[in-house]
């Protein structure tokens, strides 16, 4: 067992974990943060994508101990006081989800893309989401949603996302 300290969605946790425990299972089974689903065992599908210290990672490919001292944001940490982010709104308005299983991962991966490239082209969105599989939507509305969010999101919204990370690591 290894003791880890990690901040998840703004809450600090301290836990003893097996060294082999995956971050995805730590979030889901230990913290009960089940908003991050698991879709595969080969780090292929992207459903489990979360933000770890400002980087999007597949939480099934990261050990919980690797998150020690870090800050994790999951889809459950995005809506503040019930207000959805531009991306969440855009997925809703553009019908960017059907069953919704891929959606947390899609939103987290798209968030990462927009942080690095605030005004991507449709092709860039498609390339950036290559590691996130969706079986329902055929991706078109996801791409539309990300483009719409990019257009809508004013620059002030993004630094806020960084703030979460900073206050969490502090």
């Amino acid at each position, binding site marked *: 067992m290894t003791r880890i300290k990690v901040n998840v969605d703004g809450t600090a946790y301290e836990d003893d974990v097996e060294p082999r425990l995956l971050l995805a299972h730590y979030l889901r089974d230990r913290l009960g943060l*089940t908003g991050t689903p698991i879709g595969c065992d080969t780090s292929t*599908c992207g459903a489990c994508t979360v933000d770890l210290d400002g980087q999007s990672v597949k939480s099934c490919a990261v050990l919980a101990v690797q998150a020690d001292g870090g800050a994790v944001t999951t889809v459950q940490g995005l809506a503040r006081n019930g207000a959805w982010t531009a991306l969440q709104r855009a997925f*809703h308005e553009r019908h960017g989800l059907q*069953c919704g299983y891929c959606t947390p991962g899609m939103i987290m991966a798209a968030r990462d893309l927009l942080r690095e490239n605030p005004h991507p082209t449709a092709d860039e969105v498609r390339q950036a989401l290559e590691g996130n599989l969706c*079986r329902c939507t*055929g*991706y078109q509305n996801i791409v539309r949603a990300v483009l719409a969010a990019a257009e809508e999101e004013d620059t002030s919204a993004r630094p806020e996302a960084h703030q979460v990370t900073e206050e969490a690591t502090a």
Partner: protein
Amino acid sequence: MTGQAVEPEVGRARARKEDAWLITGQTTWTDNIQMAGLLHLAVLRSPMAHARVTRVDVTPALRCPGVVAAFSGADLAEGLGSLPCAWPVTEDIVLPDHPPIAVDEVRHAGDPVAVVAARDRYAAADALEAIEVDYDPLPPVLDLEAALAPDAPLVHADKGTNRCYTWPLATGESFEAVRARADVVLRRRYHQQRLIPNAMEPRAVVVTPLAASGEYTVYSATQIPHILRIMLSVVTGIPEQKLRVIAPDVGGGFGSKLQVYGEEALALAIARRLGRPVKWTESRSEGYLATHHGRGMIQDVEVAATSEGRLLGLKVGLLADMGAYLMLVTPGIPILGAFMYPAIYKMDAYEFSCTGVFTTKTPTDAYRGAGRPEATYAIERVMDELAAELGLDPVELRRRNWIRHDEFPYTTIAGLTYDSGDYEAATAKALELFGYDALRAEQRERNERGDPVRLGIGVSTYTEMCGLAPSRVLRDLRYSAGGWEAASIRMLPTGKVEVVTGTSPHGQGHETCWSQIAADVLGVPFEDVEVVHGDTRTAPQGMDTYGSRSLAVGGEAVHRAATTVVAKARKVAAHLLEASEQDLEFSGGVFSVKGSPEAHKTIQEIAFEAFTHHDLPDGVEPGINAEHVVDPENFSYPHGTHLCAVEVDTETGRTRIRRYVCVDDVGRVVNPMIVEGQVHGGLAQGIAQALYEEAVYDDEGNLVSGTMADYLVPSAADLPDFVTDRTETPATSNALGVKGVGEAGTIASTPAVVNAVVDALRPLGVHDVRMPCTPERVWRAVKEASG
């Protein structure tokens, strides 16, 4: 006051109610369910395709940390019956026993042999490694034709044959007769590769026992909670009324969750044995072995035509891979296709025969479209070959044969009566949007130039049979269930509305669409409607969701129940307003007396009156509720025209979709945004069959494409932007006029894409490319044609 003119909900692109919990991560996937004392199950699976199991020793697993119990197949056999097959398509069908866990023989890689129950999922997985199993290998049975040879090794030795059934259909003139007078006869063989459905949520089941009453709650990632409840009762002997099945949020299905799986029965049996709640969640790789596959057919197609391109007859022979066992509807899948081979075309003769074959592979069953994509692929591919043979444009050939819009209703040679449609209109619209003539010109130019990157244009004009319903037809096909669907509507005291539906969605947006339907009929705000589904306690009756039946049958039931609610409310309104029912107008949710609009009551006010029962007319019971069970007379028949342009690099074999246009006619549209989303998703799956996906087995019967890393589910980067549009000819088989849309994209797109690939290569002498048209297959086809 009369009702305000409100924008009708039906036809409106409403953003979905369902999204709120999905985009904020507040979902209840089955694997999310936690509770005190929950044990995790892990299943040990056969690494071999076929073997006798001579010894299973689970005792070493019991010594592993965290393990509470471990069971071999023999340990669990008592009290567990065979998994059901609900579609014995012929009287003499071979129905092998299908134990939820193998006892003495395994018949496909992944067949379960032992189960561990442990305190967490890691402990359960670890303990599997401690279990000792001895296998005595038996020969695998992999090839469909070889499996039928008299001396072939047998999948089910006690049955004496690998032939499951043969199902024939012959209508019109004899095929021999039309062949004799035909100018052209073409014979082609098409392969429908096995596909893995890949719903993004892996399967999962949680069972909680209530020992005191002998009741069990089964949470399952299933498309069919109602059917599952009945079948689990049959398999385990637990009385149906003691079983409550809940399908919580379900992350996709595509037919793969239209099933009663061994793990569901095992979880129930173990929860019963241990008196504790248990959970099983499949890993993706496990699911590739244990969740049913789709397609898996060899199609021999023969077509006879005149030199002008008039179809005379069609003859289809199928070999269909059942896999190792018959699952819920395995044998029926190819039979659904039997009716669709003649598609939208007129002809004089049709002969069909299907032979189901057992192999030592994962069982097959429904996968998006189920039988109809296979049929559409064969006919649409062969139409293109015929056009090429006759030197006709493929669209022109179709035009010469299809049913004209003024010929509906039209009874096809396969015996289906298409109620409505307009193939000319959809095709004209698609050709226009596509820019057909310009692309053909570019194609000619590239061919003349000898461009190594060729342009190909593929067309597919499809129809499908949706709204899987008419119970009497299902009876004639020997399907053991009805095809009806139930809905009830309850007006609550506050005027809010609860719609209870027997359909069980997994991404299709039923809550939104059913709310739209009910809101319109009742004249209440969309937001005031709540849709209840997926729990056999709160929605006790239903036939669930598959085969694009939800809207055409379930939506129709909601519509009728709402209409009955209005009729009852009208009675109360007439009483309260002291008018006769006939003198009441109802609009925008308001009953008002004709000629004196100041006398009015809203339906929501009436709901309150009906609840208090203070002043109701004699003989009227309190409350305003209604229930309807709908069993339509006919299927519905969406149709459309899909056009695909591809660029095929003849040097690398790479195919790029340059343009994809589809015009679908799904009848009246309840929510255009959802319809478009369904089409997109369907296209992605159909294109995936054409270009990417295949479940590959090696000679030993191991699944080579056994992980998501090896099986090419296309990503956003692999797919193009689609251009979608619609025509609307309302269905006549339901009052809503809806047809269903879930499978359309998949059915139509596979042949459109492969037709395009072959069209690109035809000048080089290529006449077919086997699916999936991978760069290697395309490259080889080009080499072989030129060499």
